[in-house]
């Protein structure tokens, strides 16, 4: 399998720093990074957490960020190529990571690998994404132009989130009569048929 990590100068420096870290502290660091790996925007550690880490691991600011970035990079490459744990271990030993650290990587990876890959796979980037579906069924009894109706009407509320505005969900309201809803459903069935033909 092609090497997923090439031994560049910065990798060498990072590896040297990683090898100095205590094993259990490093394992905890690994699991924390893995948890947040599939989230694009968020920083794994806040400013204060990074400062605490600096003293806990006895690394200065530059070395710490090198260690964090490199660890994240290795994990991202592992996700990208979907490497097996054994293969990952080999590659890590090749870049001169100490055997115990390589083992720690391996174990952490085995534990979460399928979940992380699945989460990353589900990530779509599109300007707008459908997040929420709500609906209301009403029985229209009358209106200004017609009396004595008994017309069922449905209102669909689609919550669409914009990619850049994390908190704002745009609500799209669409009203359907029985006939219109039936038409819409038939179109959805066609989409489903297409999805089924893919598997």
């Amino acid at each position, binding site marked *: 399998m092609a090497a997923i990590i090439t031994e560049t100068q910065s990798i060498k420096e990072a590896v040297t720093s990683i090898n100095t870290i205590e094993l259990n502290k490093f394992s905890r660091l690994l699991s924390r990074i893995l948890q947040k790996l599939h989230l694009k925007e968020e920083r794994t550690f806040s400013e204060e957490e990074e400062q605490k880490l600096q003293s806990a691991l006895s690394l200065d600011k530059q070395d710490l960020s090198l260690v964090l970035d490199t660890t994240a990079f290795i994990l*991202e490459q592992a*996700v*990208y*190529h*979907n490497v097996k744990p054994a293969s990952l271990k080999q590659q890590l030993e090749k870049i001169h990571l100490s055997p115990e650290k390589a083992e720690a990587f391996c174990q952490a990876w085995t534990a979460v690998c399928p979940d992380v*890959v699945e989460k*990353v*796979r*589900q*990530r*779509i980037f*599109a*300007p*707008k*994404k*459908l*997040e929420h*579906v709500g*609906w209301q*069924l009403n*029985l229209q009894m009358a*209106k*200004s*132009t*017609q*009396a*004595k109706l*008994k017309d*069922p009407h*449905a*209102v*669909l509320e*689609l919550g*669409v989130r914009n990619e850049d505005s994390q908190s704002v969900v745009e609500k*799209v*309201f*669409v*009203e*359907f*009569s*029985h006939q*219109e*809803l*039936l038409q*819409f*459903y038939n*179109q*959805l*069935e066609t*989409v*489903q048929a*297409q*999805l089924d033909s*893919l598997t």
Partner: protein
Amino acid sequence: MSSSHAKVAVGASKDSSFLGGRIPSEIEIMAKQLKDLDQEMFRKILKAVVSAIEGKDCRDAMKAIAENAAVPEERLSYVVAGMYRLLKEALRIPTSSLKQEVFKEDLRELRIPEEFITDFASVVFGNRRTALEAVATQQGPRLPSLKDFRWRVDVAISTSSLARALQPSILMQMKLSDGKAHRFEVPVSKFQELRYNVALILKEMNDLEKRSVLSIQD
């Protein structure tokens, strides 16, 4: 004694007119104005008012009628307003509730000349009725409805985070009746949720339409 009882009984059995307890003023005024209106003119005005209710542009027809000096403008405006209101109110009530005879009787009470009553009745109960009802269904307050729905199924083969992704996703574009267009991506799981919910609403609609609430005649 018995005769006065009979009178009271007759008075009580006839409910208020289909126009309600109080006749709208424009209809009362129109009724007076119709007295010596020539039927030819009446029919022309009626035609223009009906096409206005259908939503068509009737400015030219009205202009042509107004230019005919036989009818002064003030009188014309009373007649048009009254006709429009009368027809709108009559069309609002479904034919199962308002029968032709009752309609005609109510118009006689307003002292509208008999030939005009026949003309009104032919609009309300004639074969133009379904077209007029369709227009009424479309009008009235509504949230935007779906005018155009397009979709696309994509499969992401590879992304910057995953060399072999093979993840399907759906892109939907909805054009609504208020002119707005919405384009958004739908993850497969959300699509299933949408499909399930739409099916659920349809089932509830079917149940609702079968229930006895709807078979109450009014």
